[in-house]
């Protein structure tokens, strides 16, 4: 009986922390790739996340099909992000990184304003897809099937991104650009175009994570505000521009949050931030970072 109880607790902890952790991983992947490649600290990432959630909700109510909602949300967000990069963010390349930080913050603010204007500032419920609206019972504990779907799907997406970055020519150029951009430019590759693609891809990942998480967390205009804070923590801990770092740090923060929600309570967040400050002080380039940006 005791053993059963322990297994139950572990399963509960694992499902909660892996779903939170994988959400963080998916969200921060885009952020860390953009940050690493062009020294743009993209504060609008949270706004794209929020926008993706709302676009997904819109298509879900029209079509009543979760797959359509997911795909169209990602595509629309990617198109918008590419336009933003071309017409707004690219204007400030070469100036201090802080300028882009503030510009993307302002742009995110405008996006939040538009969503509030159209959809109102209340919390919108995102229904769970019908095919996944059942739950698995282990002992006295229920695991929603959607949570398992979320974990599996997110893990597959992370694996696909890993394949894209390591096995394709585009991924190799992106990684090379993160490590040493001038060298890539010397080879005659147009880095600007790749950055537009990367920016769109990162924002698409934000939208994807929003639509995936929406049935669990619902959709509201300020949903990007808290997650982007954790994403910054993850990006710095993992090392800027590093996929491995983002995955490990994201899962670590997820585990800490899961642990916090069961045992430690709110103290876990304070501990996470203390850990973050100490790490930033000792090793500013993060666990798997390529270099320090000055």
């Amino acid at each position, binding site marked *: 009986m005791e053993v059963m109880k322990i297994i139950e607790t572990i399963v509960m902890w694992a499902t909660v922390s892996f779903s939170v952790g994988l959400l963080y991983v998916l969200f921060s992947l885009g952020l860390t790739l953009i940050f690493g490649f062009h*020294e743009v*600290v993209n504060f609008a990432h949270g706004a794209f996340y929020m926008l993706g959630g709302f676009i997904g909700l819109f298509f879900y109510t029209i079509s009543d099909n979760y797959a359509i909602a997911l795909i169209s949300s990602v595509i629309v967000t990617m198109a918008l992000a590419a336009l933003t990069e071309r017409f*707004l963010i690219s*204007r*400030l390349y070469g100036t*201090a*990184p*802080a*300028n882009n*930080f*503030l*510009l993307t*913050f*302002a*742009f*995110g*603010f*405008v996006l*939040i*304003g*538009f*969503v*509030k*204007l*159209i959809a*109102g*500032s209340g919390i919108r419920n995102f229904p769970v897809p019908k095919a996944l609206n059942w739950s698995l019972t282990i002992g006295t504990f229920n695991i929603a099937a959607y949570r398992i779907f979320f974990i599996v799907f997110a893990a597959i997406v992370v694996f696909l991104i890993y394949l894209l970055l390591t096995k394709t020519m585009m991924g190799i150029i992106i990684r090379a650009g993160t490590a040493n951009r001038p060298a890539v430019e010397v080879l005659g590759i147009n880095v600007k175009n790749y950055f537009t693609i990367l920016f769109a891809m990162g924002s698409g990942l934000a939208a994807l994570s929003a639509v995936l998480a929406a049935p669990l967390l619902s959709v509201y205009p300020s949903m990007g*505000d808290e997650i982007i*804070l954790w994403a*910054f*923590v993850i990006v*710095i801990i993992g090392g800027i521009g590093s996929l491995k770092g983002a995955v490990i740090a994201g899962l670590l923060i997820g585990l800490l949050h899961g642990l916090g929600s069961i045992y430690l*309570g*709110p*103290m876990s*967040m*304070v501990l996470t*931030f*203390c850990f*973050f*400050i100490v790490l*930033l*002080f000792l090793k*500013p380039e993060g666990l798997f970072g390529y270099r*320090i*940006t*000055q």
Partner: protein
Amino acid sequence: MKLKMVRHNLFQIRSYLSLDDWIMLVVVVFTLIFSVIQQFSGISIYYLKFLSNIIIFSIFAMAYNLLHGYTGLISFGHAGFFLTGAYGGALGILHVANNTWIGLIFCLVSSILFSFVVGFTAVRIRGIYFSLLTLSFSMLPYLLVRSTLRRLTGGHMGIQFITPPPFFFDMSNLRLFLFFALGVLVIVYLILSGIINSKYGDCLKCLRDNETKLEGLGYNTKRIKYLAVTISGTLSGFAGYLFLLNTLAISPAMGFYFESAKVIFVTLIGGIGSITGPLLGTFFWFLIDEFLVKAGFVEIVLGTALIIVILRFPSGFITLMKRRI
């Protein structure tokens, strides 16, 4: 002939006072005139409180500008100092003695201590990492007062006072409080312009423009940065305490990073690198926030204004005035 003399004298005053002095003068005169008009017309007494709020927030923004505009350190966690000062004062009043002076001492001690801690780690880090480090530091007081020290601080509901604590004047008289806040604003302005026009102020500007050069000249740049963070943080904490006295309430939301972004916003809009620029920016933000009622519209207008400022006028709206005078 006489007219010419008058014009000449006026011109001399004009060149004697700087643009910042003129803006301060306009704000002081405007506030006094507004308080008189409010007395004799039907304007709600709420607007006196609103104006005090603007003045207090501009003290905060001016303190912030010492770091952003003059030292070139972009802190993304200044609301942490604000919250520390406000909660330090509130806890002093609530748990030690119901006296504003006791609260002031607690406020100053807590914000100086917090600035020491932040400054100690932050001066060793440059560029965008400084912003991220201050951002995460500002989450510490926020999380502490919201959840960890819940029993002492009232959790996410914050602390409310029903009657204002005793002070050297009656704080429930909103007009008197407005004059008090205005006086503090003028004093802070004089202190800041004293700092900026001193030799230390030149060091700060040099730090912003060329840190290596300052180091090469034999200055201890870390100590200069440390002092700047401490002055700015302590003044911000003091502004937080004034905010507490004005609204008689403080909640953890005042320390969320959105408030830090707000202070950066007003500084950029008004003009970094001028003492009163943040003052103009604060008026801009608060007036739009107050009188554009429709949800969402405020964000669109403010965000668009910030984008225009960053792309077109990197040193803020105050540059438009500089051309005139």
